[in-house]
């Protein structure tokens, strides 16, 4: 059996240690994102090292980057952008995708058909390309990035949620709610959503990874957060020249990304479960 956390058990929840680890890492990065400006040892833009791609040392815990800037400071500040932008974008994408998907499933008919075709059309254009076009057209700012990433990933979330909701929509309890005369918002919010939330969250986790990746992909194509700041993906990219030397400047942000995405998925796969006893 799964070892679980006794404290939560008291409140009627079971929470596996794997999920706990995930949560801890996420909370850690969340806190870092919040307090980063106050704890960074050097300003992110300042060149403090004579050398570049410096190794870890007591002065620069995580070495220095391609310009000789302090990597620790840059990674800590990068958390703000990666965590902030990705989380915001994935939340918007999943929220709108799921709401639209459920609505389409419930309303059906031409609304469903039109929306599905439209979003299919959007989905068929590769994300990096639409990102490229949008950012080239309206410039790069945090808001633009969030909205663009969200728009790119909405159709996918829609497709996924709609498929789930269509199944739920055939259940009798939805019919019951309808014959009661309930409105669409009650039906999607209170009847359908609780039944698809599990897979939707799992999808959220995967989509989060994709958004972090796309963000770094955009920085590869020269778009993204404004200097001197950089998200982790951009940090990896700008320092990828240090790879042959095994520079921490490229390894550390990669690890940071992996730690965050893995944790989000571990947490989602191991969310606290309410303990329900059939015979209790």
């Amino acid at each position: 059996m799964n070892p679980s956390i006794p404290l939560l058990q008291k409140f009627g929840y079971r929470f596996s240690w794997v999920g706990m680890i995930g949560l801890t890492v996420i909370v850690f990065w969340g806190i870092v994102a919040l307090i980063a400006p106050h704890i960074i040892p050097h300003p992110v833009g300042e060149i403090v090292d004579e050398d570049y791609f410096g190794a870890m040392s007591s002065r620069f815990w995580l070495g220095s980057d391609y310009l000789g800037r302090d990597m620790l400071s840059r990674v800590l500040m990068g958390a703000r952008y990666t965590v902030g932008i990705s989380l915001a974008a994935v939340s918007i994408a999943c929220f709108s995708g799921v709401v639209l998907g459920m609505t389409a499933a419930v309303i059906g008919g031409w609304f469903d058909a039109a929306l599905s075709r439209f979003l299919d059309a959007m989905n068929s254009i590769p994300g990096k390309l639409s990102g490229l076009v949008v950012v080239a057209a309206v410039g790069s700012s945090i808001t633009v990035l969030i909205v663009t990433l969200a728009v790119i990933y909405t159709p996918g979330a829609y497709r996924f949620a709609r498929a789930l909701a269509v199944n739920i929509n055939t259940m009798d309890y939805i019919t019951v709610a309808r014959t009661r005369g309930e409105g669409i918002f009650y039906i999607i919010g209170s009847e359908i959503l609780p039944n698809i939330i599990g897979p939707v969250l799992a999808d959220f986790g995967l989509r989060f990874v994709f958004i972090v990746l796309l963000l770094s992909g955009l920085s590869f194509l020269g778009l993204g957060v404004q200097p001197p700041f950089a998200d982790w993906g951009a940090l990896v990219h700008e320092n990828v020249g240090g790879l042959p030397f095994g520079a921490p400047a490229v390894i550390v942000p990669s690890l940071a990304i992996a730690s965050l995405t893995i944790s989000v998925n571990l947490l989602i796969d191991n969310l606290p479960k309410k303990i329900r006893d059939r015979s209790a």
Partner: protein
Amino acid sequence: MENLVEIRDLKVEATTDSGRCVDIIKGVSLDIAAGEIVALIGESGSGKTTIALTLMGYTRSRCRISGGSVRIAGKDMVTFSERERAGIRGTKVAYVPQSAAAAFNPTKRIIDQVIEVTRIHELMPVEQAKEKAIELFRALSLPDPDTIGKRYPHQVSGGQLQRLSAAMALIGAPKLVIFDEPTTALDVTTQIEVLRAFKSVMKAGGISGVYVSHDLAVVAQIADRIVVLRNGEVQEVGTTTDILSRARHPYTRQLLAAFEPRPRGDEIVVTGREVLLEVNGLVAGYGPLQADQLPLIRAVKDVSLTVRKGRNLGIIGESGCGKSTLARTIAGILPPSTGNMIFENRKLAGTVRQRSRDQLREMQIVFQYADTALNPEKSIEEILGRPLTFYHGMKGKKRDTRIEQLLDMVHLPRSLRHRRPQELSGGQKQRVNFARALAAEPKLIICDEITSALDTVVAAAIIDLLKELQRDLSLSYIFISHDLSVVEAICDEIVVMYGGRKVEEITPADLKAPQHPYSKLLFSSVPKLDPQWLDSLKLDPELIRTYGHG
């Protein structure tokens, strides 16, 4: 060692969500002789399926055998390794599941699934296995035995599928076959055919059987001995005749009593005879509209009926005759193609959307499957509370009180309010389902087969409840069922449907003498508690040819 099966002090425990262990079978002992058929009966959740499955050395996930022994032909299934058990499954002991429809893999042809046992255990060459399967199909009086195997599960009827799953169990020539409620989901006319087929095949092969059911009348036709279970314990064991005629245990008596038909007495004080609902020339169905503005599949064809205040209308007919479709049309879920409805002297629009909130409130529908009619993610409190808030704007304390009243009304403990549907038994779920309809304070409740999935005790309790509530709240019911005794017990008028049409309308007084031939067939197919009933039953072959569906 003369008994084929010897179960000694069997204990099965389950691990609950919180990691607690609960005993679900508490020391059951049981013998089955070679060639004997033993029935396990008892209410839902009494452990019938669990015991039956231990005979194959199998328990559902999160359960395990915690003590005792299950010996089959001298070998203890409990101590066997998983590999040894697999060797016995299908060859020595075989299982006919409760719902054949779910037990067949929808993507594979029937014949491949039927002969799979022979391939797994390498019993015989494929060709030979197929021939044997066809023989079995014939023995089980399946139509087109040579070709039926080439079909997919969804291409045959429920009754046929149930017999096919028996063939699947019999192909490995097992010594013991376990039938888990094989006829519960079938209508009476089909049930007879299936029971007959089972009985003759078992007799012919001298096979032992375990027959799990909640229906005493069915069990009476097929079993040599009956084991009565409750809460994972054996209450009483005896030969079929003994149990039926000389039951000692009070619970057994209760089961028997519940089976006694209790026709609707005249104790109901009917205040008026005004018309509540009038339905005229209703046509409804599924699929795209045809040139004549009617749907492709017409499930309800020109049905008219009247429900009066304080009186109940029963609708019976075989599976697929359009009962549910009619109910859904009246409830506004499925818009009618033609015909009109008048409710409380006002015209009733075809769809829910066009009906007023009051009209919706005054007519409630209770679905057949409580499992799918209750949202698994909501607590009982939320389920019952929503119509209260929605129709009556109740909140907070007032709503809580009312929820408790409703739970009292349907005889459910108040402590249940925080549970979720999957934590309730079938009967409890159906009561919640019904309480939700009551919460709206309706004038008419359409009950679509609400007792079909329940055991007789619980079903009888629900019928009593309906009657009681009708007295207190002056309701009317439309009561849909394939089970004649239930309809008889509660309805003032009965409509018999066949193939989407209303073939006859009868009052309980004429019950014993229906006019329409189909009604006659239907009425005569209801099993009796008499063990000889099935063997002595002679149905008009002409009727069967016209209305049966082999």
